[in-house]
């Protein structure tokens, strides 16, 4: 029994790792294509049909490029930092139910690695740990621009973790559980039972904070775009730089899974249609990340902090208060 469980878990982990590292690569293709179409360009065209093999070409380039460790850097920490980004992104995936449980060759499969009771808390915690990748990378780099962007990134992550945690508290109070599966079952009664109708404020706040947690465009301060430099990744080359990217895109996919599971009914009653519905919602939220990048510029660091501490956090606290009063 125990051995069977172990084998099953290992298979699940390998499948999730493979699928989402591949998706991270394909995600870059989608991003380029969608950004290109929104800006009236064609995007990648030359490698393969519709430029589809561009991902493979990028992969070959990243894997074969020389892995440069500059002088003066703290070598071990410098080498480990990209691994932390990628690893924490995939660790967070352990508590996400990707699909409803289904039967494969007469064996019931639960597409979740570890069905722990505190799924949301675990995911938020691990995403908080994800800040160490950019932070250590920037601090070990012996480059002032890297250090600056690391400091800015850390400030953004820590501040917006507060918003994420507070905004999610009100739905947790309503459902009475920290498990994502319980959240899904609470909303399984069709569109009218979705949490987004009773908690619209929490939904919007969580969505905004998701952009900061993944470091996407309106809050893309971890790369110093205005200094025309790539932030904490400046000193990195080859696959180590690629690992930062895999981590970022995997994070985007996982947060796109978490938002529908929390607020938009997840996979519903667990039917085939529900599973397709979840994937459609994930696709929409991933597309929205790219859409925002095409439509909006970055905001200034002081505006970002103002937005977090003077607007979003008070609204989140008020939302909790009102929810508590209504529930009483």
């Amino acid at each position, binding site marked *: 029994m*125990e051995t069977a469980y*172990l084998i099953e878990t290992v298979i699940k982990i390998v499948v999730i790792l493979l699928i989402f590292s591949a998706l991270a690569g394909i995600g870059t293709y989608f991003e380029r294509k969608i950004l290109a179409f929104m800006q009236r360009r064609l995007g990648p065209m030359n490698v393969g049909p519709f430029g589809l093999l561009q991902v493979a070409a990028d992969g070959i380039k990243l894997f074969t490029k020389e892995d440069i460790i500059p002088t003066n850097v703290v070598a071990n920490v410098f080498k480990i930092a990209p691994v932390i980004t990628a690893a924490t992104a995939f660790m967070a995936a352990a508590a996400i139910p990707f699909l409803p449980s289904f039967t494969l060759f007469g064996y019931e499969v639960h597409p979740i690695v570890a069905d722990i*009771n505190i799924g949301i*808390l675990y995911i938020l915690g*691990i995403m908080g*740990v994800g800040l*160490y990748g950019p932070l250590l990378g920037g601090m070990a780099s012996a480059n002032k621009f890297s250090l600056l962007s690391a400091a800015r990134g850390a400030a953004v992550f820590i501040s917006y*973790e507060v918003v994420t945690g507070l905004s999610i508290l009100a739905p947790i109070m309503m459902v009475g559980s920290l498990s994502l599966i319980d959240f899904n079952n609470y909303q399984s009664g069709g569109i009218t039972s979705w949490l987004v109708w009773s908690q619209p404020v929490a939904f919007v706040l969580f969505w905004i904070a998701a952009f900061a947690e993944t470091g996407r465009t309106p809050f893309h301060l971890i790369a110093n775009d205005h200094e025309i430099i790539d932030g904490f990744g400046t000193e990195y080359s080859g696959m180590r730089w690629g690992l930062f990217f895999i981590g970022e895109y995997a994070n985007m996919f996982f947060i796109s899974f978490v938002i529908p599971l929390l607020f938009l009914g997840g996979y519903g009653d667990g039917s085939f249609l529900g599973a397709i519905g979840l994937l459609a919602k994930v696709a929409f939220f991933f597309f929205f990340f790219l859409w925002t990048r095409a439509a909006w510029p970055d905001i*200034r660091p*002081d505006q970002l902090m103002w937005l977090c501490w003077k607007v979003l956090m008070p609204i989140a606290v008020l939302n909790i208060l009102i929810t508590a009063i209504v529930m009483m």
Partner: protein
Amino acid sequence: MFEAIAFYLFAFLTIVMFYITVTTSQALYALTALAAGMIFISAFFFILGADFLGAVQIVVYSGAVMALYAFGMMFFDTTREVKEKQGNKYIVVGLSALSAILVVAIFAAPMVSENITAIYPVVDGIGNTQAVGMVLFTKYLVPFEVAAIMLLVAMIAGIVLAGKKMDRSLTTMEEDEIKTLREKNIKVHS
């Protein structure tokens, strides 16, 4: 068997990480190793079935406390090695003797623990989180509320200390305004 393997693996990793933290002269190594050690400690909570405490360990220690250390480290040149002053040798001897005694006491503790009974036994059918909540709001209500008040005091003190002249920002000012402020010798946050 898997529990035993997991326990010894994480015990070994935790000890190695904290050993690096104490012995290294490179501040970044110490920071990284300490954060990693904190995460490995949460593994023991997960092995014991205390999921909630495990996740809280990660959130609080690795996510919040260590991040504050990291903020502090931003002001140093972390790529350079730290030269430590070698102080009194007797302190080292005393501390190692003390820790040896502590280790013996920890291993001897189960001998006296046999006649201990739980006042608040585990209730069937409720999860980890609920159990923590019940103990927190019955037996430990007063310490919990006192901690809340202390946090409130710390927060207000922090705002008072840091909040002077926060309404002015160099980023949003025009050049002339900054110049006149400089002439009047008024300090402004950037």
